[in-house]
């Protein structure tokens, strides 16, 4: 069904119509939330909160790019979770991400255990590099390089000018590169020498 129709029906109290929008965008939203928060449980909580917020704020949607409008809510909700997490720095071991689930999902049965371990270490290194970035740079690089959004969409989501977005992306890439170069031994041989 047409997206505008779904939004209109959602505004009339049709929850099923809104859930069709949720189903359409939950994959994109979860990817962004996961990369920004670097934790599956936090990402799930943030995304659920985002959809609830979006439904409540649907009256304020004034047309335009619904995906950008929704992703802005997701990004802002992730910021809220990040700040909340920073306040709770007294996390226990139980709060640490359960890596087994993630690992099971990403296992390629054709690769050797050694290759699998190397790939996992590289992914963790890149994730750590992203997590080390300030919020705005993290958002820019996740939306552009991980999720593949256009500059204009990122500008809309982050309420920034396109030039600012490009600048942030370039700086974020540089910092990730610098972070990775410090751990060059974990990089694939193709990158190991060039990044140094």
């Amino acid at each position, binding site marked *: 069904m047409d997206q505008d129709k779904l939004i209109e029906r959602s505004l*009339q109290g049709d929850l099923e119509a*809104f859930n069709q929008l949720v189903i359409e965008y939950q994959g994109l939203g979860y990817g962004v939330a996961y990369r920004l928060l670097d934790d*599956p449980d936090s990402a799930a909580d943030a995304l659920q909160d985002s959809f609830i917020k979006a*439904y409540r704020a649907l009256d304020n949607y004034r047309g335009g790019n619904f995906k950008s409008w929704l992703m802005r809510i997701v990004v802002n909700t992730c910021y809220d979770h990040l700040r909340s997490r920073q306040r709770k720095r007294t996390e226990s071991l139980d709060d640490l991400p359960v890596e087994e689930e993630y690992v099971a999902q990403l296992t390629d049965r054709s690769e050797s255990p050694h290759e699998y371990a190397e790939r996992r270490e590289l992914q963790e290194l890149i994730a750590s590099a992203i997590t080390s970035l300030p919020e705005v740079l993290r958002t820019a690089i996740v939306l552009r390089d991980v999720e593949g959004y256009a500059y204009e969409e990122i500008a809309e989501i982050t309420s920034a000018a396109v030039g600012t977005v490009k600048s942030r992306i*370039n*700086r974020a890439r540089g910092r*990730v590169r610098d972070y990775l170069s410090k751990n060059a031994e974990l990089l694939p041989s193709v990158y190991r020498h060039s990044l140094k």
Partner: protein
Amino acid sequence: MDPQSLNSVDEDLVAAYVDGDVSTEERQRVEAAMAASEQVAWEVNTLRQTVELLQDLPSVPLPRSFALTEDQVADVLQERRALAKVNVSLPGNVETAPESPWQRFLNFLNGGDLALRNAAALAAVLLLLVFAAEFQIQQSQLGPAAGGEQLSSAPAEPQSQVTAIGGSVAEQTGSSSDEQGTSEQVAAAENPQENADDDPVIGVMSTSEEDQQTTDAEQAPAVAALPETGSASADSSQQQLSPTETADPAAQPFVSILRYARILLVLAVIVLWLLSRTRSRSRRA
């Protein structure tokens, strides 16, 4: 492009170049800078490799569905459903059958401000009462004359009877009739011969004819007894006997009050009705 001078503008250009989102001219600028400086070339190349590593990150599978349940948004959901019902039941959203002229007339009467409309209705009722009171007074004043009319249309009677009836009417109609009776007697005294020559029956007949002629003026039968020579005095008697002039002097102020009340009430009905419509229209606006 000097690597030491990579400012924010150049950052934009490098990012766009790495993404392949530049014009031909921009690409040539960056590539010229890369050719001129190893540092710039390293910068651009390492950024491109970093992007490749980032793009190689696997997509994350969904752990579950994030579809909302009614409990999660119960308050907003109820509000929106209630609002949707209200919108559906709004008159503008419902196609109504065209109204008949009678219904439109009733709507017109029922329209307007309720209090002012009721005040106008009250004024209208009072107006009817005033009309009724005036009619009643006129009837009471004209009652005797009406009796005379009945008499004039009655079959011919002996003159003695007519005279007796005329006398009784004169007594009932008050002082003016008394004067009339007196003038009649005077006229009879002045023309004794003529009266003596008249056949009594003819005299009665002439009385009836005279009555019919003066019916519009609602003359008393006594006027009919006047001879033709006394027509001038009869005319003056007719003028004196107009309905209003024949009113009881005690009832005169009351009649005047009723007349003014009638005018005021007519004005009140019109003004109140117009105010009622105006206020209703301004409220709708």
